[in-house]
């Protein structure tokens, strides 16, 4: 399995084994339910379709409900349908429709993950906030404060370059944060603590995946008490 869908609950800080404190995001990850397998023969790639986040039955469209009933059975009050996505897998036949995927099936502590979410919307923002332009002097007779300044040259090229950084809508887009460490997992509560910040507001849906850009030498922090557990295992 490549990843799991979860819900961002909020942030806090926890003490670590070396006596310092680390900032973590608490994510309710899974359980996700398998809806469908995708195979090379039929679809051209191997993946599974998974769903997360309970939604009342009456809020679902009939086509979607039909798909959910097929995988999870009839007679439920709510169906997981808040977020439906696909994850690449080696062998889709290992997963049966209706099967639950838990955090522990996917991640281990001290592993690194990429987290994708929808960032908080900031509305229509000027160039200083949106792109970090420096702006002008606030006083000393200056009449140039937060404006973008010149946006181009003269007759040649005679137009504004495509992609020019200007004011506009900021936030509310898909953002992925790479290489966040899994600090702790609570299997019975379906919770995962990830080091650092994650895009989106509290309560929003995030997708956790095994990192695509591993950094082998990245230092690992261990939450207080986690070392003892490892010793017990030995």
């Amino acid at each position, binding site marked *: 399995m490549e990843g799991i869908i979860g819900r961002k609950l909020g942030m*806090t800080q*926890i003490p670590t084994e070396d*006596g310092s404190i680390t900032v973590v995001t*608490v994510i309710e990850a899974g359980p996700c339910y398998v809806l469908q397998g995708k195979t090379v023969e039929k679809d051209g790639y191997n993946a599974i379709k998974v769903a997360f986040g309970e939604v009342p039955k009456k809020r679902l469209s009939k086509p979607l409900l039909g798909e959910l009933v097929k995988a999870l059975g009839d007679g439920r009050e709510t169906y997981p349908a808040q977020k439906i996505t696909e994850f690449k897998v080696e062998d889709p036949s290992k997963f049966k429709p209706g099967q639950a995927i838990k955090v522990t099936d996917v991640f281990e502590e001290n592993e690194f993950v990429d987290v994708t979410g929808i960032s908080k919307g900031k509305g229509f923002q000027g160039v200083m906030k949106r792109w970090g332009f420096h702006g002008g002097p606030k006083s000393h007779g200056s009449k140039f404060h937060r404006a973008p300044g010149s946006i181009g040259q003269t007759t040649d090229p005679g137009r504004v370059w495509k992609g020019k950084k200007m004011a506009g809508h900021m936030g509310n887009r898909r953002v992925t944060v790479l290489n966040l460490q899994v600090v702790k997992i609570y299997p019975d509560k379906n919770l995962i603590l990830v080091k650092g910040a994650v895009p989106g507001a509290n309560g929003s849906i995030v997708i956790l995946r095994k990192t695509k850009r591993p950094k082998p030498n990245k230092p690992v922090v261990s939450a*207080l008490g986690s070392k003892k557990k490892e010793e017990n295992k030995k």
Partner: protein
Amino acid sequence: MKDHIIREIESEFMRKDIPDFKAGDTVRVYIRIKEMKENPKTKKVEERVRLQPFEGVVIRRRGSGLQETFTVRKVTQGIGIEKIFPIHSPVIERIDVIRRGKVRRSRIYYIRERRGKAARIKELR
């Protein structure tokens, strides 16, 4: 307001062995300090844990839950030193309350402007 699940996680890391104290009290905080030291017999560099006491007056407690901190002030050779400790820090070995002070506010910043006899705090009876 914080999510109850987050509060549950925080409570797991909170320490229950911290004595009750407030601003104006004199405390001694024992801090665990890890240091690398050469053992004279074996000539090996070993990690050693040593306890460093820090004694002074608590001038404030702020925050709540796992994030709560307190500030301890002492005057050494005429120079005031203040240290801020997270109250649930695992670095703290223990906290001894030496004296209960009688003060009328929760943050006794005015003590910073006092020197010598004026900086005394009455003991609570």
